[in-house]
């Protein structure tokens, strides 16, 4: 089984210009991997909202791929979002779920029902175009280009083992990130029609 850090390294390497939205523990690892750039947004203080933020961006910017770096506890907090994403069916939307069965941020408490639910089955039943389960970094490295080349929405469950703490919480605000990301989009002539 891979660690979050292993998975993040592969995703950072294979991101290929995709817009990213991070949640909870993935935020720190993503920033530590140098990915907290102007193409990234952290879902801060709104556990469960990363996929909705990513969905909005994906709908507004269909020419850009959007990758959401979510947690299993986060997804369970707004599980209906799977249905909402599937209903909109954004072909540029890729939903990565780091699954360790824990509320890591609050002290590693166990998720309710861990071991009984199946995130891939939930996504498929909700209407995602595809759901993939990956438990090691080499498999993720092999599959990632093909996944990102295929139409979304795709849910990719990343089975991860406990990891060492990465870094302190990044010193960014959503407001700053949103301003930078929106400015980037508004400078893109493709978005002019939406202004």
């Amino acid at each position, binding site marked *: 089984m891979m660690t979050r850090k292993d998975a993040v390294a592969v995703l950072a390497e294979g991101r290929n210009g995709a817009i990213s939205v991070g949640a909870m523990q993935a935020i720190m690892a993503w920033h530590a991997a140098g990915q907290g750039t102007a193409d990234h*947004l952290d*879902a*801060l*203080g*709104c556990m*469960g*909202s*990363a*996929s*909705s*933020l*990513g*969905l*909005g*961006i*994906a*709908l*507004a*910017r269909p020419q850009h791929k959007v990758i959401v770096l979510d947690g299993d506890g986060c997804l369970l907090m*707004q599980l*209906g*979002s799977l*249905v*909402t994403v599937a*209903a*909109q069916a954004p072909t540029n939307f890729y939903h990565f779920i780091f699954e360790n069965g824990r509320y890591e941020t609050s002290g590693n408490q166990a998720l309710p029902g861990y071991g009984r639910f199946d995130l891939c089955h939930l996504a498929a039943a909700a209407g995602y175009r595809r759901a993939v389960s990956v438990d090691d970094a080499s498999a993720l490295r092999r599959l990632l280009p093909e996944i990102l080349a295929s139409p979304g929405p795709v849910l990719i469950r990343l089975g991860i083992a406990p990891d060492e703490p990465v870094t302190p919480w990044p010193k960014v*605000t*959503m*407001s700053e990130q*949103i301003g930078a*990301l*929106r400015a980037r*989009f*508004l400078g893109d002539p493709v*978005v002019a029609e*939406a*202004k």
Partner: protein
Amino acid sequence: MSEHGPVAMNHEHATASRNSLPGVTGPSRSPVLPIDARAVLAEIRAAHVTHVITVPDTHQRTLLALLARSESPKLITVCTEDEAIGINAGLYIGGARPMLLIQNNGLYACLNTLKAIPLDARVPTVMLIGEHGRTLSMPSREDPDRAVRMLEPTLELWGVPYYRLEGPGDLGCLQRGFTECLENGGPLAILIGAPLAAASGVRIL
């Protein structure tokens, strides 16, 4: 006392953080007057709204019926108000001009997300909020229904400016509020006091 024309109420907290919306205090109108859903849709279109994100609301079902058969703005129905706020922010980031259409009960359901995205991150978030359960013959703060009675105090507590849409004369608040919200950032609520009147030819089930 009743107010005529667009009414904005600002709590001191909201005024301090936004420093923009003109504030007029006072009780809401009674009785509340019906407004044609077509007139509300016209105002939404005049504000160049691109997307209406909704968890359906009974007061606004006639408007929802119009939106459902309209290509613009695009109607996005979601499962929770938390999702609606997140999608609104994502669309805004991408350059669109979205807004929310929800119910008073839904506002209570999404307070944490309201805190994080519209308030803390200052994302423009216009929310049409139906006052489900409101007794039309009395001011909202005197309503026996808790969801109705507590709505304005809740908005004030959280520093969310709001307008009341309680009669045809208030319709101008929609465009004005949308413009102000985009300029200032943060949330803005527009409270729908009475069920919107059905447009002729629209069958509401």
